[in-house]
């Protein structure tokens, strides 16, 4: 459980990277999972809880064979269906074009969609849960 402060996002994502290193993820895979975890936690703190400290964000990490599963839950404002739909557009589909029209923020979900192998978002009874998975190449204890 993480208190809804951005400094705690740093701690949680570094902890997760350490876990990934420990179970045998490559440095690149660990960094990717760390990035996506930070993006998801940032979304909770900034958007779900509007930067209000003292709210709870739950992070749950598990491993299933070659897959790392990260679940992040909050009880704040849910991500809208239109935002979820927008995030499914590939970052590569967007044309940088004119700097004036490029949004400063709002890439977090798209980054997760691009980097992780799967992303699922559910909002039920006031609890929002984002589940993302990443297959790692050679986890400890698994035959290749």
């Amino acid at each position, binding site marked *: 459980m993480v208190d809804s402060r951005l400094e705690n996002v740093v701690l949680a994502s570094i902890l997760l990277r350490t876990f990934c290193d420990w179970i045998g993820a490559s440095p690149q895979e660990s960094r990717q999972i760390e990035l996506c975890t930070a993006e998801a936690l940032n979304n909770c703190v900034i958007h779900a809880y509007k930067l209000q400290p003292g709210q709870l964000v739950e992070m749950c990490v598990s491993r299933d064979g070659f897959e790392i599963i990260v679940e992040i839950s909050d009880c704040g404002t849910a991500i809208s269906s239109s935002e979820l739909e927008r995030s499914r557009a590939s970052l590569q589909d967007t044309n940088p074009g004119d700097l004036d029209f490029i949004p400063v923020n709002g890439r977090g979900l798209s*980054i997760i969609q691009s980097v992780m192998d799967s992303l699922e978002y559910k909002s039920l009874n006031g609890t929002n849960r984002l589940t993302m998975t990443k297959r790692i190449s050679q986890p400890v204890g698994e035959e290749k």
Partner: protein
Amino acid sequence: MKIRTESKGRYLVVTVLEERLGADRAVSFKESLARLIDQGHGAFVFDLTAVTFIDSSGLGAILATAKRLGRSGEILIAGASETVGTMFKLTRMDRIFPLFLTVEEALSARV
């Protein structure tokens, strides 16, 4: 956000002295850069050699700075690690901000 600045010709080299350019640092980074723009600087080289982590908020701070500078301004990125460079490429920000291996290379390219 800890940074160091050094004038090199018409460019101000801004060296980021912290390893992480994430959401917790993005606002203060953006504010520091805004002050430099208000002081009259219009061309920058951001030295990200020390940076090992950047998220979309960190990128957003750089993008916001570019928007504040406008068309007459310039931002070059130097020293991006593989991780940081991948983030620029993933988000197509490498099409807006030229990436160079070193500050010297960035400055030489613009002589």
